[in-house]
């Protein structure tokens, strides 16, 4: 478990904590530090050399060179890149640098990509993250990395006038700021944040009306589900968002915060971990036995599974025969990447939740994607 810290590997890595609390980060940077130490030295030398040569050339041809640079008419952004000026763009700010709405957008956030397409800004998207799968139009767009590995060179070369990124991507922000490319931060949060984010994004893009209409459609869809289910009994439900396949180890569930909890609540389920204000949490089998959920909904990110595989996954729960959901066979495995994207398709997720929670026929039953099998297997 060590990336060879210290001769005999005393400590830090042995821990399994060092190991991971800081996880990828710590280790990545452990390696990175060493690597970049070298790199820095190299590039430091390189820069010095280049600077020396450049200075020499400038000394000889200074007036001409300066004129040439001006003549080539570097764009504001390129000059900024060269001079390293930084003008701080307010995070998620509404102003757009040159006064016109962005037309070349790069989205590193899949849910934001879906929103862009939903509000009619799809044609303006020039690149997306490596995790984007929806809508189908994104398949032909270039990929520029994601949360931990944004490809800055690629992003700059596509000359975007707006980049949508996660607020934790501070390194990327610094680089884009230097290139004077406005950044819009997207924050995941509650269900209400989705339509709020859509409206905000719309006003930023000059599509206020379109965004308002799309957001209103979502709100209507959600309200519709809520009213249909008003007065129905709310089964105590556990929403599982991950576990080790075919065993009951490392069970990760939704706590009482975040859009998945909100969707469950809206679809008429009582989250058994609603009292824990966390988006996701690991729980022990003992806790599951004690909280006794009547329904278990499991989200699987893969689009579909063979009936065999799904049946075997469901059988894993037989280890806990005392849980009412297991006893009554109310375990639902839902397949589909859209289930975990806090974007415009949340209405579909809410419908699916409502359908399995109340076993209703009134709500659409095979909505998830045209031409595909229904998303749930029972």
């Amino acid at each position, binding site marked *: 478990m060590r990336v060879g810290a210290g001769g005999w590997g005393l400590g830090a890595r042995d821990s*399994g904590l060092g190991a*991971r609390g800081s996880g990828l980060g710590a*280790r*990545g940077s452990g390696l990175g530090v060493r690597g970049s130490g070298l790199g820095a030295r190299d590039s430091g030398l390189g820069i010095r050399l280049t600077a020396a040569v450049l200075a020499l050339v400038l000394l000889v041809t200074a007036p001409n060179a300066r004129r040439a640079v001006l003549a080539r008419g570097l764009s504001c952004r390129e000059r900024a890149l060269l001079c390293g000026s930084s003008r701080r763009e307010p995070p998620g700010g509404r102003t757009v640098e040159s006064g016109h709405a962005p037309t070349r957008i790069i989205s590193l956030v899949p849910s934001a990509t879906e929103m862009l397409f939903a509000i009619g800004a799809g044609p303006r998207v020039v690149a997306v993250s490596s995790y984007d799968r929806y809508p189908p139009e994104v398949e032909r767009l270039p990929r520029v990395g994601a949360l931990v590995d944004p490809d800055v060179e690629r992003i700059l070369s596509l000359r975007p006038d707006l980049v949508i990124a996660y607020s934790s991507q501070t390194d990327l922000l610094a680089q884009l700021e230097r290139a004077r490319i406005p950044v819009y931060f997207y924050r995941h949060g509650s269900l209400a944040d989705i339509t709020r984010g859509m409206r905000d994004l719309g006003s930023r893009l000059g599509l206020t009306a379109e965004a308002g209409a799309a957001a209103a459609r979502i709100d209507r869809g959600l309200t519709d589900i809520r009213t249909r289910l008003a007065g129905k009994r709310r089964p105590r439900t556990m929403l599982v968002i991950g576990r080790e396949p075919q065993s009951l*180890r490392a069970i990760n569930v939704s706590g009482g915060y975040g859009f998945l909890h909100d969707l469950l609540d809206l679809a008429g389920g009582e989250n058994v971990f609603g009292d824990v204000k966390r988006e996701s949490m*690991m729980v022990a089998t003992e806790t599951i036995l004690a909280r006794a959920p009547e329904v278990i909904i499991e989200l699987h990110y893969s689009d579909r599974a063979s009936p065999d595989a799904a049946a075997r996954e469901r059988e894993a729960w037989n280890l806990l025969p005392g849980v009412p959901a297991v006893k009554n066979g109310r375990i639902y495995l839902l397949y589909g990447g859209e289930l975990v994207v806090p974007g415009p398709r949340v209405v579909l997720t809410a419908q699916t939740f409502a359908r399995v929670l109340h076993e209703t026929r009134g709500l659409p039953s095979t909505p998830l994607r045209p031409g595909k099998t229904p998303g749930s297997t029972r």
Partner: protein
Amino acid sequence: MTDVRRRLAVSMLVFGSLAFLAVIGAPLLGTTPIRLARVFDRTIPFADNVDAQIFFIARLPRALAGALVGATLAAAGVVFQALLRNPLATPFTLGVSAGASLGAMLAITMRLHLSLWGVSAVTAASLVGSLCAVGIVYAMARARHRGFSTNILLLAGVTLNSFFSALILFVQYLADSAEALRTMRWLMGDLDIAGYGPLLAALPLCTVAFVAFAWLPRALNLLSLDTDAAASRGVNVLRVQRVAFFSASMATGAAVSLGGPIGFIGIIIPHLVRLMVGADHRIVLPASALFGAAFLVAADVVARTAMAPVELPVGIITALIGGPFFLWLLVRQR
């Protein structure tokens, strides 16, 4: 000799009862109140008896897994420290756990959805990974040496460890976020095995290893001083080294595949026990196994109750207790 016997008996009694109390006590402790009378009430069908299920499905397997993993890692730590004649050696020094982790990472990211007798593909793959690491390190130690060079063993092991760790990072980096989270969680250690299948899978290797451990202590006493002296006293050095290496490595592989790479047990428990009972391996080895069992079971009780209903990774608890202690030990040894 009688003195050793007496000290052995006393320490077995003390550490044995400690381990016994931990294993018996842990299933009684938890955030959910259960009534013992109801747990053992045979008139209620098991499927309806939640108290019995919490006791027999959730808590008892955890306590037993904690005892097995703790005992195995602590004993393996003693053996590795003697074999490598290095007080900082741990069961994870020679890359066994990194091999196990790499196996588990691959099973997670390749989505191997298989299971056999309640043992998931992740557990099986980590066991295979650890055995591969053992084989590679052993082949290295034998390659350019007619005997069995512990120096080469150490260098090869540490290098392999770094190499596997880099591969783990690589696999993890390529994984998607949900898989990366699961791999991360696996590396923090987890004893919530929900059932007895994984326990039974790890038991054969651990049993074989402990039989070997029982044969080792006298030879380890001589070996940890000087190999030549040990040879002159009639110890078959090569054979002892080989048995020690294989038994401790296999035991580590089995323990890691069961509970993940739970750190610090393999290094602090042997040192702690030596402080209490001296350096004689005839006492240190069994006492460490028992104390390691008690320690990990206790740490796991903290892991599942401290922030309930949120489960804390047990590796964090052992490291939080083990880290400061280890630093103190280092300073004290000056």
